[in-house]
């Protein structure tokens, strides 16, 4: 019972913060907006041969929010994301988009739903310019020719909207950019294409401080513009600086889906390392 008016994360007898189904079971008195998640995946199983990597994994993401997906190496984060992007088929599991069941059986399905995954190698073409990369496959035309001026203007606007100032000219070839700048271009591209869910896989890993900070702020701005952002990260400061929700995976199971404002650093570390949390703070 909670008589102090302070919502403490409540653990079930097994020490788990919430149920695996993705719905918090903690009997906290906090008010939750009655919104359906934009994307809700439940009960995802996935095996590679005899090794079961995911056991009924779940993930809910909401528009306007950054959901951090945390877990140790091998917890199943990347596998879950690949299932979500249609890169790997799920053995079992339901995907709900805006509350409706949908099938994601290939990357094309995911793209049609507006799910964009920015991988660590971010699939950009080194020989093309920043603007050309951002419109790759969706070039704008004026009559029979490409409308380069329009594409360059829109690319610059998208970068400005995310306060990405370090890229310089949108005519620069992507091959000449540093890691953080490339990451920024990949994020801005997601915004330009009208994506609804953007998944960033370890976006700050291997970046210098200035670029890492800029990428985090861009992720935050993307969510503040109404997109649902999933941030996979090992860095607790990255997670706490921008996340609204935290989903923790432990040995292929979702062990917690909580609001970032309801948990402490220590609790999240405990969830990652042991899959459970001591109820007292």
């Amino acid at each position: 019972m909670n008589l102090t008016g302070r919502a403490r994360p409540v653990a079930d007898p097994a020490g788990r913060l919430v149920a695996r189904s993705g719905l918090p079971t903690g009997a906290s008195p906090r008010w939750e907006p009655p919104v359906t998640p934009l994307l809700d995946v439940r009960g995802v199983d996935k095996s590679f041969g005899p090794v079961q990597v995911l056991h009924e994994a779940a993930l809910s993401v909401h528009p306007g929010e950054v959901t951090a997906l945390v877990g140790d190496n091998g917890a199943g984060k990347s596998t879950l994301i690949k299932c979500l992007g249609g890169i790997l088929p799920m053995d079992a599991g339901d995907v709900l988009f805006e509350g409706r069941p949908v099938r994601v059986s290939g990357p094309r399905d995911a793209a049609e739903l507006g799910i964009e995954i920015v991988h660590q190698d971010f699939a950009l073409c080194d020989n093309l310019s920043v603007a050309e990369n951002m419109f790759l496959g969706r070039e704008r035309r004026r009559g029979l020719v490409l409308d380069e001026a329009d594409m360059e203007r829109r690319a610059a606007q998208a970068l400005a909207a995310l306060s990405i100032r370090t890229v310089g000219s949108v005519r620069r070839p992507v091959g000449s950019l540093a890691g953080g700048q490339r990451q920024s271009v990949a994020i801005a591209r997601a915004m330009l294409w009208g994506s609804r869910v953007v998944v960033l896989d370890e976006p700050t890993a291997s970046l210098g401080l200035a670029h890492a900070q800029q990428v985090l702020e861009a992720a935050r701005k993307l969510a503040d513009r109404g997109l649902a952002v999933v941030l996979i990260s090992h860095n607790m400061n990255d997670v706490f600086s921008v996340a609204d929700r935290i989903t923790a995976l432990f040995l292929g199971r979702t062990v917690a889906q909580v609001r970032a404002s309801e948990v402490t650093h220590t609790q999240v570390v405990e969830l990652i390392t042991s899959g459970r949390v001591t109820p007292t703070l």
Partner: protein
Amino acid sequence: MKGGPSQEEIRRHNLGTLLRHIHLRGPASRAVLAEGMGLNRSTILALVADLTAAGLVREELPRDTGRRAGRPSLVVRPESTQVYALAFDVGVDRLAAARVGLGGVVLDRREAARPRGAFDPDEVVGALVGFARRLVRKAGRDSVCVGVGAAFPGTVRQSDGMVRFGPNIGVRDLELAPVLARRLGLGLPVAVGNDANLGALAEHERGVGVGCANLIYLHGDVGIGGGLIVGGRLLGGAEGYAGEIGHMVVNPGGRRCDCGSRGCLDAEVGEPTLLEYAGLPADAQAGRDAVRAVVDAADLGDAAARGALHRVGDWLGHGVANLVNIFNPEMIVFGGTLRDIYLGSAAQVRSRLAVQTLAASRERVKLRTADLGDDATLFGAAELAFAEVLADPLEVLTRLRVPGEAPLPAPT
């Protein structure tokens, strides 16, 4: 006895509202303005005509027409290169000045590093006047300066702009506004405000907090400053000293603060504390770059730097938790060096928040980093300078456009 507002007062109010809309939200068509202000189109037409005649706005075809059918409607634009304000920012480590056009465009700027040490008012005012002279000389002949604003790291009395106390820069009872106004010789008063208060204003009007009526801005320089936007307005208190968040005691009996107290947020989180915890010698290089270097080292795994950020972040969390409980803000913005400190210690800050705030107060609060970067305070000073012309556009312009007045500051 006074009845309702007169025709003249209503017109002045509407002119100010329209100009403020264009100034803050950028060019807009008359139709958009009519809808935004709830006035009919003929009134908007008359107001725009008045402002155009005064040289404050102009109407022209939109630059980005797209490919829609029909004649595009004209947009009302601020006369940014013709109507400008001078903004000054006195920081502990730098002096900055800018010529900011109506609409918030930085037309020109000057900046210089300031060595730490005793504060010499003559030297600082002299440097600012030097900047101003060069900025004004570059302005077009027929352009007009409508106001001067300055941000200062200290408590500032609202009634006369007297700087009462600036512990980080070593100032007590400094008559900055009249001295600066006299030396500038522009025939304009100088409005002075606390730097973090002005940063709050700038982030609220042009930065990450646009549309957010309850916002707290925390500014890290050498010390910690703050500004509170409550119900859409900057909270000044009885005399304008409100928002000294840096002197909120978070650790009773803690580290000694320059204000004379102990355990202030400023003393527990400020730059000297972070650098000391990180094991840097007292005579090492200080300033923004030194703070960033600690955050960078922590990011690369340096144990001392990580420990320093942990401790500082924890105290910052105490302070932020108190603010959330007292003010129930919609947003907390970390600016100046606190942007780096927050991004490097968010786990500590938010852990404190999760434990020490009431659930109802914290569930909607957004923690954000400043959008305007190091220029938030300078932009705030510009907004202060524009306040008068936005309140009564025609009167101010008529007064300033009197022919024969010297546009250049008199040589000193």
